[in-house]
């Protein structure tokens, strides 16, 4: 048990004395040589604009779909309403005795 605890303690301490891993600047070609490796950078503002345009288009399409759906229902409803009014008027006329 003591050897296990000691082993764990020693393993936990194995990073003592660690120093930074060195990196060679030449391993960063995209950063150090932008002419050879042109960066495709999309600025943050452009990202936002693209999302705003997409949201606007989605809203337009949604509105159009809703108006088409409700136009059909409204037209059908209004036609029924006209028929009802006309039949009531005609039946009213029938009741009038001249």
């Amino acid at each position, binding site marked *: 048990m003591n050897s*296990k605890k000691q*082993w*764990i303690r*020693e*393993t*936990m301490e*194995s*990073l*003592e*004395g*660690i*120093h*930074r*891993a*060195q*990196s060679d*600047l030449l*391993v*960063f*070609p*995209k*950063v*150090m040589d932008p002419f050879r490796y042109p*960066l495709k*950078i999309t*600025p*943050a503002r452009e990202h936002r604009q693209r999302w705003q345009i997409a949201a606007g288009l989605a809203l337009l399409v949604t509105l159009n779909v809703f108006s088409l759906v409700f136009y059909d229902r409204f037209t059908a409803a209004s036609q029924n309403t006209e028929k009802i009014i006309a039949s009531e008027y005609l039946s009213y006329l029938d009741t009038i005795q001249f």
Partner: protein
Amino acid sequence: MVNLLEEKRFIENLKNGEPSAFNMLVDQYHDRVFNTAIGLLQNGEDAKDVSQEVFIEVLCSIPAFKMQSTLTTWIYRITVQKSLEWIRNKNRKKRFAIFISLFGKEDQIQKTDPAPFYHPGVLLENKERAAILFNAIGRLPLNQRTAFTLHKVELLSYTEIADVMQVSIPSVESLMHRAKQNLQRLLADYYEKNEQ
């Protein structure tokens, strides 16, 4: 005070897009960025790629940098974010591959135990034990892994870690405490399986 003024001037030069300022930035920070990335990712090639992504991000975002933190803290923050994104993407691909393997050939199944990672900065006499420790670190939850790596590999203080992770110092203390408990448990399991 002088350092703050110098830093302010340096940031202004970066915002103005001066190539010499950017070269100085890369020169000053590339070791810190690479060391943090390699500590979190435990892979030299991945760390190189992420390090480049970090400097590209710095280049793109420096105009919007409001100096609410120091430049160093900001760069560490970007490095941690990019590294964690990389890890999440890799884990997502692994899960997808395992799902595919249910319907495909057995040789598509991913190994659960990665190759041992030997950090180039560890003392020679500690290399094997450190590799076992890094394996255990790789199994920690990401926030514990981040705090532990920043403290033990990049040697940041708890105050600096709190600034980078944008949490309180007691939160960092709690993360470190839980990380150490989890690591001891994982190492105990490893000892039972391999060392006895």
